[in-house]
C-alpha cells in the first residue's frame, strides 16, 4: 500500500470512529428526553398545587373575616347597650350597676381590639400568596427551559415519550421580596424619606 493510500485509510477509519462516536452521543441525548419530559410534566402539577394553596388560604381567610366582622359588630352593639343601661339607670343608680357596666364595657372593648388584631394578622394571606406566585413563576421558567431542550432534541427515540403541550399560564403579579416578618426598609426609615421630600 502506498503512503497516500495509508493516509486515506487512516482518515477513513478516523471518520468512521468519529461518526460512531457522534451517533452514540445523539443516542444518549435522545435517552434524556423521557426523564426531561417527565420533569416538565411535573411542573404544571407543582404550580397547580401552589395555586391551590393560595386559593384555599384565601377561602379560609374569608371565612375568618366573616366571623371577625360579626364579632366586631356584636361587640359594638354590646358596648352601645351597656352605655344605654348606664344612662337609663339615671341618678341614684347604684354604684354596683355603674361598676358592672364599666367592667362589661372594658371586656367588650378588649374583645373588639382582639378581633381587630386577628384581622390585622390575616394580612399574612396576601403575603404568602405572593410568595407562592414567586415560587410558581420560578417553576414555570424551568418548564420553559425544559421545553426548549426537548424541542432541540427533536423526535424522541422512545415512542412512549410524549411532548406535553404548553398549558395556559396564570398572570402573576407579586413582590419577590414579600415577607411577613423581614422588611428591606423599616417603616420609620420610609417615613424619613418622605419627610425629607416634604410630604
Amino acid at each position, binding site marked *: 500500500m502506498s503512503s497516500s493510500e495509508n493516509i486515506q485509510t487512516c482518515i477513513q477509519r478516523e471518520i468512521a470512529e468519529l461518526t460512531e462516536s457522534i451517533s452514540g452521543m445523539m443516542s444518549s441525548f435522545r435517552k434524556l428526553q423521557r426523564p426531561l419530559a417527565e420533569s416538565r410534566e411535573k411542573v404544571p402539577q407543582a404550580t397547580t398545587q401552589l395555586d391551590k394553596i393560595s386559593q384555599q388560604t384565601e377561602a379560609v381567610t374569608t371565612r375568618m373575616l366573616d366571623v371577625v366582622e360579626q364579632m366586631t359588630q356584636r361587640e359594638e352593639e354590646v358596648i352601645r347597650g351597656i352605655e344605654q343601661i348606664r344612662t337609663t339607670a339615671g341618678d341614684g343608680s347604684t354604684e354596683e350597676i355603674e361598676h358592672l357596666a364599666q367592667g362589661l364595657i372594658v371586656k367588650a372593648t378588649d374583645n373588639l381590639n382582639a378581633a381587630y388584631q386577628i384581622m390585622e394578622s390575616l394580612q399574612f394571606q396576601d*403575603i404568602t*400568596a405572593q410568595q407562592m406566585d414567586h415560587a410558581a413563576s420560578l417553576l414555570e421558567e424551568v418548564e420553559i427551559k425544559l421545553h426548549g431542550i426537548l424541542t432541540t432534541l427533536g423526535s424522541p427515540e422512545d415512542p412512549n415519550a410524549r411532548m406535553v403541550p404548553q398549558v395556559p399560564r396564570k398572570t402573576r*403579579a407579586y413582590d419577590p421580596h414579600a415577607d411577613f416578618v423581614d422588611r428591606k426598609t423599616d417603616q420609620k426609615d420610609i417615613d424619613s424619606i418622605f419627610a425629607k421630600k416634604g410630604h
Partner: protein
Amino acid sequence: MAELKILAVDDSPTMRRIIINTLKRAGFNNVIEASDGKDALAKMKIERPNFVITDWNMPEMDGLTFITTIRAMEEYKQLPVLMVTTRSVQEDIVAAMKAGVNNYIVKPFTPDTLKAKIDQMVGK
C-alpha cells in the same frame, strides 16, 4: 376638608376587606374598592374619590403605572395617594415617590399606622 371618599385598590380581596374594615374603625365610612389600576381608573370616573389607597403589584395595571397615569391628568394632580404594599426595597420607595405617591406603608400594617398616615395627609 370635605368628608373623605376613599378608593381602595388591591388585587387581593382579603386585603381590600381588611383595609375597608380598618378604615371604618378609624371613622372613614365612605370607601369604594377596585381590584387593579385599570379597574381603579374606571371607578374614578364614576365615583370621583378624593383620596386613594393603592397596592403596587397588581395584574392588568400595577400601582406605579396607575399613579403615573393619574398624575398625568390635570384633575388628579393634587389627589392624595397612599401606597400600601409589601415592597420595601429603598429603590422602590424612591420610585413610588417620584411617580407621585404622597405617602407609603409597608404591609403588614397596623390600624394606627394607616389612620396616622391618612390624618397626616389630610392635614389633621
